[in-house]
């Protein structure tokens, strides 16, 4: 299950206000403030912030006391992250004003203010992003966040031909509950769907990896949400969910390299099964949101589908094709027609070709690939050695693994190794979950070569598991292989940036290799050692 649920960018509040403001326009009026209000509301909805800003300023100057002007001004402030001003700006307006939107906005602003209360901020190195974060541990990832987003800014600017002109607000939230507070999602929905980030209200909202047990591919997630941002602005928020999510999923790796459309083993398993059983999810069913699909598995399959579709299109028509499709959609063309047009075919043919393409890829369902990957939010402070053990099918192996986890948590790694070995023997030597845990224990026992032998094949099997890259990095570092350690730690950093071993190990590797980011990692290492 992907972490990036298609909480796409339909800004409900602004949508509603467009309708509400539209209703306020008397039929006999030809032009005037109400028309301006509608235009301003539409500009906000399309994230044309400069235009909206100008229009709203004019509106406020003309009719400062008008409910509409005040509401639009408050909404613009909300997009700018000025939550206090939103609340003060709505003073005196009843909650049911502007079709009840005042109440919703006021409530959202209040909860956003509460969730981000006391936040510090830093501007990214390129100046395109302003990152807001809770003082404390999150400081260790602020610079990294900026670096990732700046890299994505450049890469996506080149790919899609659009670079936002104003500074983008990024909020690093400490808990899933905070994401619920700053959005219309409930905490239960976030937990169920694994939603961990949103691009909404003209900002990126990302739950910090420290809120999770093992971490998650947070750097890809940041880029994923930024893709949404760019596409929303480019298309004036007219791109449908499937295309939005397809582009975001396909391009989310652009901060670190080319988009090659490589599937994770879980995605590959889902797609291969769906192709075999002919249970692919239709694009229509993905509307209005991926989160509305019946299960996490269905949503994961949908993500895999749209991602491969975009990969197929991109392979055929390149960046230019994607740009043209988005522009056509912005200009009013239907998404399917626009995509088919750039592919110079009909939609039905395109769909058939894509499925043929998938079949020709000979997707495989590898052993253990069926185990769901999900973001596990940290709920307590207890030991987490046995989190995820329930996925082991063999009951006896599960018991041994559980015992091993208890032994490791109790500071008995040698005994834990014995139990993990027994579990691995029962479950199969290629079990990534048990293998990863055993490799970590080997490392703790100083059996580095055995740790490397176990961890290396597991490196890219599970994008949610930081244990193999962390173990491998530490083992390689201990054996003097700085280059190998760096590669492994960089993989671990993508998932678990608060792990002191990762940051300190990476700092040491970088220092040995004279890497430019050595000082950043050293600082992060020292900082995390202080605040842990």
């Amino acid at each position: 299950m992907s972490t990036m649920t298609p909480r796409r960018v339909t800004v409900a509040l602004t949508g509603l206000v467009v309708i509400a403001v539209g209703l306020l326009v008397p039929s006999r009026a030809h032009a005037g403030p109400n028309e301006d209000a509608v235009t301003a509301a539409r500009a906000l909805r399309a994230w044309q912030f400069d235009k909206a800003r100008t229009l709203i300023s004019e509106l406020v100057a003309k009719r400062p006391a008008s409910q509409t002007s005040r509401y639009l001004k408050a909404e613009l402030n909300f997009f700018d992250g000025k939550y206090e001003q939103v609340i003060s700006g709505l003073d005196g307006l009843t909650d049911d004003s502007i079709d009840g939107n005042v109440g919703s906005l006021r409530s959202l602003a209040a909860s956003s203010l509460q969730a981000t209360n006391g936040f510090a901020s830093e501007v990214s190195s390129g100046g395109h992003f302003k990152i807001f974060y809770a003082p404390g541990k999150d400081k260790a990832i602020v610079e990294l966040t900026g670096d990732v987003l700046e890299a994505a800014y450049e890469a996506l600017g080149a790919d899609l031909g659009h670079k936002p002109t104003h500074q983008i607000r990024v909020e690093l939230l400490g808990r899933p509950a905070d994401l619920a507070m700053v959005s219309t999602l409930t905490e239960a929905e976030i937990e169920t769907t694994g939603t961990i980030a949103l691009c909404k209200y003209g900002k990126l909202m990302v739950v910090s990896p420290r809120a999770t047990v093992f971490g998650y591919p947070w750097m890809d997630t940041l880029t994923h949400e930024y893709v949404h941002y760019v596409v929303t602005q480019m298309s004036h928020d007219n791109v449908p969910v499937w295309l939005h999510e397809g582009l975001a999923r396909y391009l989310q790796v652009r901060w670190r390299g080319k988009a090659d459309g490589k599937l994770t083993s879980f995605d590959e398993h889902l797609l291969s099964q769906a192709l075999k059983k002919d249970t692919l999810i239709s694009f229509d069913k993905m509307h209005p949101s991926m989160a509305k699909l019946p299960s996490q598995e269905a949503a994961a399959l949908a993500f895999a589908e749209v991602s491969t579709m975009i990969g197929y299109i991109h392979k055929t028509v390149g960046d230019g094709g994607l740009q043209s499709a988005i522009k056509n959609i912005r200009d009013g063309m239907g998404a399917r027609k626009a995509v088919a047009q750039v592919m110079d075919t009909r939609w039905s043919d395109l769909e058939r070709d894509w499925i043929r393409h998938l079949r020709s890829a000979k997707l495989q369902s590898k052993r253990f690939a069926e185990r769901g990957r999900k973001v596990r939010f940290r709920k307590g402070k207890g030991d987490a050695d046995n989190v995820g053990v329930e996925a082991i099918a063999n009951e006896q192996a599960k018991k041994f693994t559980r015992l091993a986890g208890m032994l490791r948590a109790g500071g008995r790694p040698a005994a834990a190794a014995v139990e993990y070995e027994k579990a691995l023997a029962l479950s199969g030597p290629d079990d990534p979950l048990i293998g990863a845990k055993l490799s970590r224990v080997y490392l703790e026992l100083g059996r580095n070569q055995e740790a490397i032998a176990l961890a290396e094949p597991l490196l890219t099997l599970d994008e949610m598991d930081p244990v193999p890259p962390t173990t491998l990095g530490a083992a390689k570092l201990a054996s003097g292989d700085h280059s190998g350690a760096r590669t492994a730690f960089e993989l671990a950093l993508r998932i678990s940036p608060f792990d002191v071993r990762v940051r300190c190990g990476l700092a040491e590797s970088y220092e040995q290799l004279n890497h430019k980011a050595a000082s950043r990692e050293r600082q992060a290492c020292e900082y995390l050692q202080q605040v842990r």
Partner: protein
Amino acid sequence: MEHRLAIVRFLGAVAQRLRRRAAVEGLLYLLAFLGALALLAPLLAHWATLDVRTAWAVAALATASLLVCYLLAFLGPRRRWRSASSQARYVGTCEGELRSDLLSSVEFLDEASSSGSAELREALLISTARRLEPLRLQALVPFSTVRRPLAAAGTVVVLYTAVALLAPTALAQGWKQLFREPAKAPFDGARLAKTPLVGDVDIVVVFPEYTGKANLSLPSSSGDFEAMPGSTIEISTQTTEAVEKASILLAESDELASNEEVLLSKNSSYESSRGTSLTGSFRLMKETYYRFEISNGSSRQVEARARHITIAKDQAPKIELYAPADELDVAKLKRIEIAYVASDDYGIRKIDLVYTPQGGKEARQPLEVASSGTPSLGVSGGPLAPRNAQHKYLWDLSVLPLRPGVQIEYHLEAADNDDVQGPNIGHSRSYSLRLFSPRERHEDLIARQQQLAQHMLELLAERLVASGTSVALHRNIQRAAEEVVVEMGGLVAALKEDELATKKLRAALSEMRERMNKRVRREDTLLASFEKRDDDDANTKALQASDEKIIAELEEDVLLLSDWLQRQDLENLLGISDEVAASRERLKRLFEEYERTGSQEVLDEIDREFKALQRKLAEMAQKSASLPEDVLDRFVNSEALQHQQEENCLEKVRELLDAGDAAAANAQMEKCSEEMDASAEALENALSKLRDESFSEEQKQLEEMLNDLADLAQDQDDIANQASQIYKRYSDAVNEMQKGKSAEARKTAGETLEKLRKSVSKIPRAGLTPFTREEMTVLEKRLQDTETMLERGELAEALSMAKHAKESLKTIRDELEFSLDEAWSRKGVVAEKAARNAVPVAKKLVEQLQEVTPSPSEIMEDEDRRKLDKLRRQQQASRNRTSKVLKKAKAQAESMPGASGKAVEKGLESALKHMQQAEKQMRSRDPSGARQQAQEASERLREAQKTARGAARQKQKLGQQGWRDEPVRIPGAEDYRAPEKFREEILDAMQDESAPSGFSEQVKQYYKDIIQ
């Protein structure tokens, strides 16, 4: 050369012995001298009243003797026997024949100064040396000369000892006398006047401010009087002749001495040649003697007899503590009522409740001192501390950071307002109480299980690593296993006393213990046999085989205990959640009460309950955070962990309450309650999921049983609905029959209903117990329903409602009667009497309505009779099914989780009774009764569903505490009032309650008697 050396050595040895002898003699003489001095000096001092100056002389003499001794016994001999020639002379003196040769030889020893033949000199030296050889030093320098000084010293020691034994006092006092300062002349030589130097003495005693006492004037006093420490003594008097200077000399005793002088001022206008008027003042702190001193030029006179000021003591406060019992066992969350009465001669400044937990530090809680009303004012107009204090205090044990099971000793301490010598403290008698919280005790046992689990895990770790290794290592592990078996035994025993622990857990641990014990014994035998043989290979193989089995069993046990711990952790969390729910329920009631009354007392109660609720939420947050992450991840969803949000929600309630908006606060509280209910539900689901995973058989049986209950309840609802329809038709028929005729009946019943209302209103709320208070709400609702039905002319319904009202009233009466047996109270008596008086009125109302309401059997149509018969068969079938489920529940009771089996049994049995009643009512053609009984059966079944879920986790019974968390009261304390308050009440009662005609005088007399 050897002969030279021999001579020199010999002479040196002689000189050394001579020096030693002189030293010994000198020391003995010194000892004798000092001894004599030590004996004579104190005796002389004693007899001749010598003082410290003699001591100095003695010391000087002793020092001098030391010096002399040093000179004569050490320095002198050293100088005298320094040269070889002097040594030779001494030897020559003793050995005359040798004298000449020895002296010559000594001269020849110095070769440089010698003349003559060297050979001869050598020959003489050799000869002298040879002649010296036989001489013995002891003979040359005998120590017999020491006898004399020894005898002297001995004599002195004997004498000293004899005097010390015969006249120890004289010797001791002599020594004391030696160190006594030389006596001065009294008052520096002033003349002691045997007659008073002043005339009448006028004294004004200004008492310390804190006493609030007025000044005491003592005109023409002798000068002897009593005053309190801190008083200012103002003295005025006159001398018989003119004086230049006068003063008062203060002393601690009546001896001729003083330690302070107070100069008296002269009043010049009264000064004459015949006398001088004098005034002065001083502050008195302790018992004091004083004399007047007058001076004229160099002549000074002091009164020989001292005047005496005695001290009046400020007494320590007296304080009495009243508590519910000398030794009390209370739940931790409880408050206990204590009352206290304190009094002091001048004022009470502070009263502290002092409590000491067993093995802990003493802590204090200040209590109220000031009485209501205007405080008395002191001399300077400032408020005075009250002399009497009398209060009650509700001691909230929930705020104390104490563990359950701990014994607390407590008493009161009252401090008075003595700011001169520091407060005097009065103590009450001590009481003790023991905190008791089943849940926290249960938690302690969970902690012990966790410790056990840790030990078992360590045992497993040791075995896994040591598998197949040495016998010695296995012996260590086996011994550790023995300790774990003992630990398990202790835990099983402790769990028997834990009402929140399930039998199954005990059984599981007992089995585990037995298993482990067998393993330990088996291994012991095995290891003993290995220890006897030396075959390491064979031992290793045998150990490996044994380890495999032991490890497999141990692994199962570790996992089993871990499962139980996870389950108990969640159950415990739900236990706190139950307490939160009970607390919320109380808060809800309190809000309603506050909205109605606006009472400060209720507001205080809300405040307390709020704090308790917040503490519980914090405890839940802390406990849930410490659960293993895998348990949280798998079973507990975020909805169950919204403690922060809940606390925020409560904070809003608090804000609204502080702003005085009780209604909004109540509404917000409802919102919070909904959130908390959802959390509790989510947590309950988490527990079900966990049980389903680790204890699936139990959970399956529970779920099946709950489904059965739900089906039965549904059946009962259906039956009740059908009965209701039949009843409706009967009711309509009654109404139709009574159309136009019922006005009179309605009027009569209405009047009786009004009377009943009045009777009910006489039941004082304050006399009700929590349970009867709830029942009273039901009664009022029923009376309202009866009235409504009467107004509508629906007599059958009115009769039904009146019957319910009568039953409620009887319940209240019986319950009050019962509670009076348990704890008598004046208001309870009044309430019970009022309820008893109301019952006949309710009966009358029912009878009146029955008279005008034809019975169902009289007017029911055939079709409805058939339907009722059919319904009875349906009810019978439902009862049979219920019996079967009951049988199944009994069979499965032991294998269902917690006490859920028992809870289901109880619910089913209760439902069966109502089903039987329903059948009975159907048989007697009473659709109203049938409907009610069928509904009751349904309610019991649904209740059983609910209680079974709680019982599955041994849920504590918290719901019976009532809407207020009633404190533990002092028995009979509610009748206690301060006398004036009590009188007021009686007088009010005299005015309020009219006596029966002709008895008013007797009643008045009765009240008077009470007051007196």
